[in-house]
């Protein structure tokens, strides 16, 4: 299944403007907590990273995972548990989350990548549901109450993360690390092959590529990065709950990515920001949130199929000739 995405090769002349835009964006992110409420920004950053990780699969390998909540929520539980129960330092706790998510990714990926298209999605969904079930049953997750009251602690024993600004900049650093990791992967020789596999798998095989390994590699990377996002979220919000492992969360990340623009690097960030902002701001209004999200979904699919970022990029590309 060839997802209609719009792979835009980096154009040399666009380079400088990309660098400038990137610098402006980073400056804005650095200044953000003084303008916008920091916890809200952190929430956006966590979900943006999650969406980026998801986009690595759908946008660049063409695999629609319907079970990515497993890695996000799973890592949240692992990190929360490591920090709260084992008393790990936050960074070590995050590492536990990421490694845990990567291992989950290895298992899920190993089973799922051998299937294509909708069957792939369904296997990831099925395994995701099983994982959610385990989370519901396992004692360490505390059922529907979740792991509450996770201490933020001191990063490397030095930086007090209970300071909102310190927590914000650490989250920002993690996000940027993840974002650039994805950027690197996508624009690497490995990323090229992923693209080719998505375009025509049989041909890639006939050229001697062990396609399954590439897909599995990408899957594990995506899972690990989703785990990084989930672990960070557990520390920022100080809890890990079932909502993060349920299929609705997997659906939400699809929404974010689609809204922003599948297969564009910045798209998922835009999409995640919008969805999180809507959820937070609409919370105070009378109008049902889900209806509005549904409407946005429909409009996006019908009109802005490339997603917000995708449409903007397309517009700029047309202008450029």
């Amino acid at each position, binding site marked *: 299944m060839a997802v209609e995405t719009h792979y835009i090769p980096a154009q040399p002349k666009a380079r400088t403007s990309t660098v400038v835009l990137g610098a402006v964006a980073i400056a804005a992110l650095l200044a953000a907590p003084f303008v916008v409420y920091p916890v809200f920004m952190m929430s956006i950053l966590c979900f943006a990273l999650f969406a980026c990780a998801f986009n690595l699969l759908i946008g660049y390998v063409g695999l629609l995972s319907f079970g990515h909540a497993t890695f996000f929520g799973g890592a949240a539980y692992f990190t929360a548990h490591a920090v709260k129960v084992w008393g790990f330092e936050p960074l070590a706790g995050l590492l536990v989350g990421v490694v845990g998510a990567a291992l989950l990714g290895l298992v899920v990926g190993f089973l799922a990548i051998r299937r294509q298209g909708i069957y792939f999605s369904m296997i990831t969904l099925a395994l995701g549901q099983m994982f959610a079930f385990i989370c519901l049953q396992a004692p360490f997750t505390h059922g529907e109450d*979740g792991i509450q009251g996770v201490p933020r602690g001191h990063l490397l024993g030095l930086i007090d993360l209970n300071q909102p600004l310190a927590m914000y900049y650490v989250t920002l650093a993690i996000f940027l690390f993840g974002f650039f990791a994805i950027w690197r992967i996508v624009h690497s020789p490995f990323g090229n092959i992923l693209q080719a596999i998505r375009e025509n798998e049989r041909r890639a095989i006939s050229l001697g590529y062990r396609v399954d390994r590439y897909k599995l590699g990408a899957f594990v990377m995506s899972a690990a990065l989703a785990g990084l996002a989930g672990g960070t979220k557990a520390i920022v919000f100080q809890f890990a709950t079932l*909502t993060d492992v349920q299929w609705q969360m997997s659906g939400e990340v699809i929404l974010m990515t689609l809204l922003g623009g599948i297969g564009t690097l910045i798209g998922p960030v835009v999409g995640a920001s919008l969805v999180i902002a809507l959820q*937070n701001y*609409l*919370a105070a209004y*009378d109008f*049902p949130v889900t209806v509005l999200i549904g409407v946005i979904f429909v409009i996006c699919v019908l009109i802005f199929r490339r997603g917000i970022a995708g449409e903007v990029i397309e517009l700029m590309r047309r202008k450029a000739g």
Partner: protein
Amino acid sequence: QQVSDNVVKIGILNDQSGVYADFGGKSSVEAARMAVQDFGGKVLGAPIEIVSADHQNKPDVAASVARQWYDTDKVDAIMELTTSSVALAVQGLSKDKKKINIVTGAATTDLTGKQCSPYGFHWAYDTHALAVGTGGALVENGGNKWFFLTADYAFGYSLENETSKFVKSKGGQVLGSVRHPLSANDFSSFLLQAQSSGANVVGLANAGLDTSNAIKQAAEFGLTQSGQRLAALLFTLAEVHGLGLKAAQGLTLTEGWYWDQSDENRAFAKRFMEKTGRMPNMIHVGTYSSVLQYLKAIQKAGTDATEPVAKALHEMPVEDVFAKKGKVLPNGRMVYDMYLFQVKKPEESKSEWDMYTQLAKVPGDDAFIKASESGCQLTQ
């Protein structure tokens, strides 16, 4: 200056669009507004404001709304807090931020137990009270052999466990239980198991739509005809109304308030009805009471600073339309009387909302855990 920022802001945070929307939902916000109105709109000369938000049953949405309320919107206290995961998350946050929170919509006894807070209060029901009410009182009414249909999560287990304890302590027997997944939709299989268990009471340790569907299907499979009674452990007037008397008749349940209990209640319910189009249940009136009591505490403390207000809340008796001779334990638990009700048959009902017959009254001291036994660190 007595009142911070010259305004007292109370946040009502609950589920307004999900499965628990009828349970509390927007009507709770309305109840809070009524409390402000009844208090006179001002406290210590400062205006009172109610803000509200829909947490969509997501703890992280709830937590970020709560943080934002505390950090930037100058909210002084958060109330209602339907569902345990949200209530626990917000209570934890409030404790860190040294802010007052009063829970009416969540059931877990952990709020005043392991995870209690010096500034956290639990105002309406909890799993223990429901268990005492339905479990204990029903055995005395002849329901001595129990079988449980339990929702497969922490809330369900604790309802089942606590209820079993009271059933046994009153000399009843628990013949078995079956754990069903959340949102199971079809309960016939479980009901069949209950039917063949030989129990005379089937306890429904679940909530919301699950309970409604279980009751409806129990009627379909003739459970009550074969002599079994249904006891819903967490069910309120709003949901009985949604189910209809035809399906719900004979059901026993515990609630902390019913509109037809006194003239005062009827008068309150009438006002509430005019505003919301429905009769209040214990969550709505509990929210009303918690807001009112909070305002009274500010009045008494002469400030809206957290410590003195919390102290006042702990000390003041509760005496309003919701609770008579209510008192607040050191762990934050508000103690008041609960009631065991039975749902009327359609032919007994005189009006749309005439639905309960009172079976028993459960005194507050029996209904709620003693502070010393709650496991709350603050009381040891």
